[in-house]
C-alpha cells in the first residue's frame, strides 16, 4: 500500500520535473520556435486521435455488441417497433457523428498554424446558416413522427377484443408483489391501511371495519397474490396495473423493451405482447440459465440493486395448468374458509384472525 503511494508520488514528481525542465529548455531555445514545434505535435496528435477514436469505436462494437439486447430479437411485439426505431435513430445520429467528428479533427489538423496561410475573414453566410437549420430540422421531424407513432401505440393500451391478461404489480421495498383477479376477473378493493406483512401484503379489503368505514369486498376472496414471479402468456397481450406500497419503484422489463414507474397513490399501466416463452428464449440466446427479469429501475433505497422479479412466459395451456393450482390469498388469511381445508379449520381458525399488528 505505502509502496504504491510512494510510486505514485514518485511518478508525479518525475512528470512534474520533466515538465518544468521542458519549460526552461523552451525559454532557452526561443519560445516562439518551441511553440510552433509543439503546435505541430499537437496538430498531429489531433489527427491521430481521430483515427484511433474511429478504430476504437469499431473495436468497442466488436467487443460488446453481441452482449447487448440488439443482438437478440425483442421478446415483445412492441419491442420490435422500438428496436427498429432505435436502428433508424442510430443510422441518422451515427452518420452525423462520424461526419462531424472527422470534420472537427481534420480541420484542427489541416488548418493548424502556418506562417504561409492567410486567414480567411469569413464570419457570416445566411445560406449556410439556413442549410444547417433546415437539414437537421427535416431529419428531426422524421424521428419525431416515427417516435410519436410508436409512443401512441405503446401508451394506447391493448387493442379492443385482444383479451389481455391483467395483472396488478406492486412494488415494495424491496420486492415485487403480483395479483391476478381470480375467477371473477375482478380485482377486489384494497386499502393501504389494512396492509399486514404476515398475510395481507397488499391490504385487500376482506374484513368489515367500522373504524375505517369499510365493508368486506367479496371480489377480493378469489384474488391470487404472489411474490417475485409473475406468469404471462405467449402471444397474449398482458396489461400490468402498477402501483407502489412505499417509495417510487420502476418495473423494468429490458428484454421486452418496456418500463414504467410504480408510484404510491397513483396507478400506472403498461402493456406488451410476449413473443417467446422463457423456454424458447433459452434456445434463442443459447443460455440455459436465461430468465426474464424485472429490474427496479428507480432508486428506491439501499437494496434497490437487489429488487429482482421474474417473468415466466408460458403457453396458454401451461398457464391454465399453473393457474388451476393457485390458491386465493383469502384462504391464507382465513384458512377456515378454505374448502380444501374445511376439516382442519376449527383448529387453525382463531390464530388466523388475530388482528393485524403493525
Amino acid at each position: 500500500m505505502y509502496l504504491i503511494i510512494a510510486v505514485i508520488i514518485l511518478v508525479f514528481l518525475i512528470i512534474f520535473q520533466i515538465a518544468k525542465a521542458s519549460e526552461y529548455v523552451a525559454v532557452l531555445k526561443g519560445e516562439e520556435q518551441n511553440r510552433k514545434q509543439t503546435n505541430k505535435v499537437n496538430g498531429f496528435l489531433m489527427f491521430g486521435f481521430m483515427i484511433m477514436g474511429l478504430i476504437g469505436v469499431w473495436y468497442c462494437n466488436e467487443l460488446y455488441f453481441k452482449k447487448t439486447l440488439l443482438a437478440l430479437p425483442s421478446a415483445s411485439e412492441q419491442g420490435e417497433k422500438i428496436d427498429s426505431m432505435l436502428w433508424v435513430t442510430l443510422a441518422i445520429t451515427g452518420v452525423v457523428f462520424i461526419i462531424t467528428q472527422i470534420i472537427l479533427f481534420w480541420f484542427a489538423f489541416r488548418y493548424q498554424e502556418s506562417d504561409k496561410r492567410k486567414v480567411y475573414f469569413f464570419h457570416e453566410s445566411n445560406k449556410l446558416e439556413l442549410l444547417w437549420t433546415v437539414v437537421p430540422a427535416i431529419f428531426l421531424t422524421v424521428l419525431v413522427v416515427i417516435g410519436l407513432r410508436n409512443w401512441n401505440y405503446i401508451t394506447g393500451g391493448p387493442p379492443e377484443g385482444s383479451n389481455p391478461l391483467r395483472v396488478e404489480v406492486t412494488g415494495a421495498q424491496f420486492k415485487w408483489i403480483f395479483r391476478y383477479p381470480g375467477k371473477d376477473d375482478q380485482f377486489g378493493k384494497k386499502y393501504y391501511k389494512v396492509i399486514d406483512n404476515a398475510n395481507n401484503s397488499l391490504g385487500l379489503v376482506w374484513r368489515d371495519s367500522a373504524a375505517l368505514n369499510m365493508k368486506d369486498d367479496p371480489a377480493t376472496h378469489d384474488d391470487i397474490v404472489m411474490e417475485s414471479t409473475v406468469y404471462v402468456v405467449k402471444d397474449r397481450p398482458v396489461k400490468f396495473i402498477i402501483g407502489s406500497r412505499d417509495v417510487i419503484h420502476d418495473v423494468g422489463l429490458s428484454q421486452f423493451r418496456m418500463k414504467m414507474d410504480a408510484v404510491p397513490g397513483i396507478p400506472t399501466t403498461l402493456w406488451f405482447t410476449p413473443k417467446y416463452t422463457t423456454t424458447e428464449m433459452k434456445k434463442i440466446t443459447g443460455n440455459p440459465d436465461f430468465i426474464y427479469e424485472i429490474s427496479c429501475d428507480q432508486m428506491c433505497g439501499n437494496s434497490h440493486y437487489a429488487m429482482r422479479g421474474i417473468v415466466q412466459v408460458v403457453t396458454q395451456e401451461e398457464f391454465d395448468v399453473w393457474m388451476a393450482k393457485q390458491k386465493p390469498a383469502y384462504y391464507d388469511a382465513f384458512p377456515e374458509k378454505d374448502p380444501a381445508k374445511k376439516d382442519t379449520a376449527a383448529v387453525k381458525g382463531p390464530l388466523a384472525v388475530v388482528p393485524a399488528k403493525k
Partner: protein
Amino acid sequence: MSNEAVLHAHSGVASSHDAGGHHEHHHHETFITKYVFSQDHKMIAKQFLITGMVWAVLGGLMSVLFRLQLGYPDSTFPWLEDILGKWAKGGRITPEAYYALVTTHGTVLVFFVLTAGLSGTFANFLIPLQVGARDMASPFLNMLSYWFFFSASVVMLSSLFVETGPFSGGWTAYPPLSALHDASPGSKTGMDLWIISMALFVVSSLLGGLNYIVTILNMRTKGMSMTRLPLTIWALFFTAVLGVLSFPVLLSGFILLIFDRNFGTSFYLSDIFVNGVGALPNEGGSAILFQHLFWFLGHPEVYIILLPAMGMVSEILSVNSRKPIFGYMAMVGSLFAIAILAFLVWAHHMFVTGLNPFLGSIFVLLTLLIAVPSAIKVFNWLTTLWRGNVRFTPGMMFAIGFVSLFISGGLTGIWLGNSALDVHLHDTMFVVAHFHIVMGVASMFGMFAGIYHWYPKMFGRYLNNTLAYIHFWITMAGAYLIFWPMHYEGLAGMPRRYYSYEQWESFKNFGDLNRFISTVAMIVFAAQILFLLNFFYSIWKGRKVTNQNPWGSNTLEWTAPIRPGHGNWPGEIPEVHRWAYDYGKDGKEFIPQTTPVGADESHH
C-alpha cells in the same frame, strides 16, 4: 431604458469606483478584506474557483470509490475500512455508503462544481472585465453570493459525518424516498442537512445571478452595445436568466419537502406503508408533483452548466483560430432559443412516470427541437475552424475537446428525448453515459478551457504547458474510454444506480468492462491531480506574464494591466468601437475592440 440613462448610471458608478480605486493606493487592504470578505469580483471569482476545485476533488474521489465497488465487486480493500470505518466493513463499501457516495457525487458535481465552480467563477471574473466595468453592480451582494455558497458547502460537508450517513436517495431526491425518515438511513439527518445546504445554495445563485444580469444590462462601457458583447457574456447572461427564473421553483419544491418531512403535511405523500413502521396517515399527495418542480429547475440546470462552457468555447475557438466566430448573430440566437426551450422540456425526464401520453408527445417535440439550435452551434464552431490558423494552446485543445464531446453526447440526447426509445433506455447506463459526456465532461472541458485561457489574467503567471498537454490528452482519451463503452451496458438494459449486478442473469456479463472503466477512471482522476499541482504551483512559481495580451485577443480584459487592482483599469475605462471578433480582417491579425474603426476599413 434610454441610452443616456444607461450612460449616466454608468458614469456615476464609474466615478464612485474611481474613488475606491484611488483609495487602494493610500490604504493598505487587510488580509481579511483582500482575501476573505473581498468585494473585488476577481477575488470572488478565484474563491468560487478554488472552492469548486476542492469539491471537484472530493466529488471525483467519491466516484473513484464507488467505481471500485462496480469494477471489483469481489475484492476487498482493507485500506477502505481504515478511511471509511463502518461504511466499508471488511474492506468493501456497503450499499448504504455506495448510494451515499453516488448521491453526493451527483449533487456536488452538478451544483457545487459545475454551477458555482464554473459559472460562478467565470461570470464573476469575465463579466466586469469584458463589458468594461469596474466591478459588479453590487459588489456586496456578490460577496454574499460566495459566502452563501461557502456555507452551503460547509453544511453539505458536515452531512458526510452524521451517524446515519449523508443523503443517499440520488441527486434528484425524489420523494417519498427522500421524505420518509424510515425509508432509508440516508433520509434521516443526512437529508435535512442536504436540503439546508441546497437552500443556501439557491440563495447564493440567485444573488449571483441577479448581479450578473444587472451588470451586463447596465454597466457596459461606452460603445459596448449588446451586439458587440463577446459570446462569453451572452452565454453568461442567458445562464443567469435561467438560474433566476428556475431556482426559485426548486426552492419551493424543497420547502414543500421540508414540510412533508417534518410537519406532517402530505404534498408528496399518499397511501404509504413503510416496512417496520406501518401505514402512514398521509393521503392525497402526489409524488410526481415534486418531479415537476424539480425538473423545472433540473432541466434548465443542464443549460446553466452548459451555456457558460459554450460561450467560453466560442471565444477561445475564435481567438485561437485567429478568425472571427462564424455566425455571431446565429450564435446569440441559438443561445436564446436554447434558453427559451430549456424551460419547455422538463417533463422529458418523466416519460415513464405515467405522465399523460399526449403531454408526453408535446415534450418529445419540444425536446427534439433543441437539437436544431445545438446543431447550429456545432456547425458554426466547425466553420470557425475552417481556413483559420489554429494555435493549439491548452485552452484551445480543451475547446476542441468540448466540441467533440458535445457532439457525441448531444446525439444520444436525440435518442433519449424520443419518448418511445426512452421507455427502453430510461434509467439505464445509457443515460449515465449520455449526460456524463454532454453535461459532465463537456462542461468540465469548457471549464478547463476557461482556466487555461484566462489563467494569465487571473494570476499574472502562466501554467506549465507540458503538464497541460499531458492533462488534456489523458482526460480526453479517458473520457471516451470511460463513457463510450457505457452506452453498450445501457443497450443491454443495465440499470443505473446498482451496487452490484452479480445476481442478475441479464446484466452480469459486463464484469470485465466495468473493471476496465474503473481502472481508466482512476487514471483520469490521477491526471486531474497533475492539473491541480500545475494550478497551485503556477500561482506562485509559474512563468511570469510579461505581455499584456498574451493570446492576441480583442476583448477588453486584455487591455487591463497584467495584474489589475480593484477597479480593473487604473485610468479611464476603455471605450469600445467594434465587435469582439475582428481577427484576420484586412490582413491584420487582430484588431482589439478599443481600436476605432479606420476610414479605409472594409465593412462587414
